């Protein structure tokens, strides 16, 4: 017990100690990142083989046999696939081949739209999803956190605090169900916004202002569904933290010293209560992604969720696996970035070894 304050102070005043701690922390976080990516690839390889067969090969052979209109390219693909993985080889060898491909981002070809590679499909749809999610997550984080802080603040106006119950109840509704309701009200009844797709049929995505405006118009309803139902999540968490902070002695002291209400709120309350929220942001990424997948399906938004929905319908394994890998990679990267910024924002983490 005695050594702890000593190590604390040495950590605080000795830049070498801090440096060593930082290297250790960095290495640990990067190792965790790699572990997640490896797990994703492994799960992707073994889970579809749970039934004992190689489902991708089965699916392709079935398509060739039925001679369906999927294009004769499939036959080349079966050959390529057999050559690459070869079911005569032992499973671990197939697994190593797969890991090698994954590390080079070689995700293979789509079965349903053969000559296209999974990479091409992912590149197009990921851009839509990531733009939608970045904007909505940031907005809902900022507004939800602020709202939660205000609701906990005893000196806030009553009308603002009375908004709390409805917004917090919205957090109990899955994103896509709220999406169905918004779709009906604003796209079917009022016809204020388009109800399907990411742009008008026949238009080709480009970077002109006209197109961006059109895409924005299509994105409003999906964005609103995610925003409204996730606001409450951040508000509930922030309210809890703010109530705790308000009970701290330094708040009483600051108030007694006559510090102005606004400064008390931002510099003494908000700043201290917000740090755990950033930790939750990393944890919530998975939840945000899973919810957004279905919102996209509801609105036919051309992101990764709609592609996944189509791939499941068409039993397009390479695309499904590619999407799983891409989402996990995105989440792992975001988590890593947040993990690395957190010690910069919160000195308490730097001192905790």
């Amino acid at each position, binding site marked *: 017990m005695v050594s702890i304050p000593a190590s604390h102070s040495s950590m605080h005043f000795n830049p070498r100690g801090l440096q060593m701690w930082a290297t250790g922390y960095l290495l640990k976080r990067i190792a965790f990142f790699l572990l997640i990516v490896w797990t994703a690839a492994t799960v992707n390889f073994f889970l579809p083989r749970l039934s004992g067969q190689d489902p991708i090969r089965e699916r392709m052979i079935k398509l060739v046999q039925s001679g369906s209109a999927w294009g004769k390219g499939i036959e080349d693909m079966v050959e390529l696939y057999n050559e690459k993985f070869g079911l005569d080889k032992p499973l671990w060898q197939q697994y190593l081949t797969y890991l090698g491909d994954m590390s080079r981002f070689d995700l293979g070809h789509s079965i349903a739209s053969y000559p296209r590679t999974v990479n091409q499909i992912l590149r197009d749809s990921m851009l839509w999803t990531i733009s939608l999610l970045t904007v909505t997550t940031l907005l809902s984080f900022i507004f939800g956190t602020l709202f939660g802080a205000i609701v906990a603040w005893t000196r806030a106006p009553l009308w603002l605090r009375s908004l709390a119950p409805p917004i917090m109840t919205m957090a109990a509704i899955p994103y896509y169900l709220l999406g169905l309701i918004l779709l009906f009200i604003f796209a079917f009844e009022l016809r204020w916004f388009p109800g399907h797709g990411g742009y008008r049929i026949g238009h080709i995505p480009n970077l002109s202002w006209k197109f961006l405006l059109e895409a924005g118009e299509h994105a409003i309803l999906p964005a609103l569904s995610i925003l409204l139902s996730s606001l409450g999540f951040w508000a509930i968490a922030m309210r809890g933290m703010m109530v705790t902070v308000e009970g701290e002695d330094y708040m009483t002291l600051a108030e007694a010293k006559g510090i102005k209400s606004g400064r008390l709120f931002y510099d003494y309350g908000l700043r201290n209560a917000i740090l755990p929220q950033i930790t939750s942001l990393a944890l919530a990424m998975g939840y945000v992604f899973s919810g957004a997948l279905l919102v996209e399906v509801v609105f036919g938004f051309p992101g990764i969720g709609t592609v*996944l929905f189509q791939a499941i319908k068409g039993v397009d394994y390479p695309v*499904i696996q590619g999407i799983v890998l891409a989402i*996990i990679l995105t989440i792992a990267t975001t988590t890593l970035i947040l993990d690395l910024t957190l010690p910069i924002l919160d000195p308490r983490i730097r001192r905790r070894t």
Partner: protein
Amino acid sequence: MAVRAESETTTRRTGSSALQNGLGYLRRNPPLAFGLGLIVILLLFSVVGRLVVNVEDASPLSAPPFKAPSAEYPFGTDKVGRDLLAVMIVGTPLTLRVGLLAGVLGVAFASVLAFTGAYYGGAIDAVIRLVVDVGLTIPSILILILIAIALRGVNPTEMSLIVAATAWLWPTRTIRSQVLSLKERAYVDVARMSGMRGYEIIVRELMPNLIPFIVANLVNTTASAILATIGMEALGLGPTSHPTLGMTIYWVILHAGVLGGYWWWWLTPVVIIVLIFIALYLTSVGMDELANPRLRRSV
């Protein structure tokens, strides 16, 4: 407060039933009362409905398609002629059952891992913690999608088993942290010094103290299991021949039922699903209060 506690003990002494005690507690814990009440109402809707409505009508071709709500079909009918009232009557308890089974399996497995891991520590605990950390970073719906497409064509029970495959991760983390703090208590040391074995301490000293906490976890796990189930069903990976709530949502999405203007097709399942989530949320808030006495002042 003191008066109330005293009156409670006297009623118990006069030999009044446990049911009355339970009802008395519910009066002091409104979230729990509303949450449980809502679940009871949903179940009653289904039980009474089975007596009044022919549940066979939940299958396709038993009614004319796309009928708006009327005296004959109070909830309307869908594209392939399912009577939606019958669908809701069959689907509501089915969805609840799938979630509850997954929740029970998940929490049971989580408890075993959490108690052994946290009590014995060492390498097993380190592995459990790492697996949970990695597992919670990966969205469970992705794992569930991979399992579900490998096992093409599932029934509701298999659905529970699939969802249980990831449902244990979160309760393992929370129960483990509770066991870690509980095992430092003096009475555990006393038990150890009096020669109790490790598993005896777990079963006889630690578990009884954590039962309220584990039940609270069960409610949360069931809620997320239902969320995962409906999500998978909406993506088209559910039991296609069973009329669950999530499958109804899937048919609506597949046939663009919202933009077609068939509001009765999606509104009822959405309302019931939202009611289920609100009921479980309130129950969980109430259970928290029961499991964590430190919160009792605030409610």
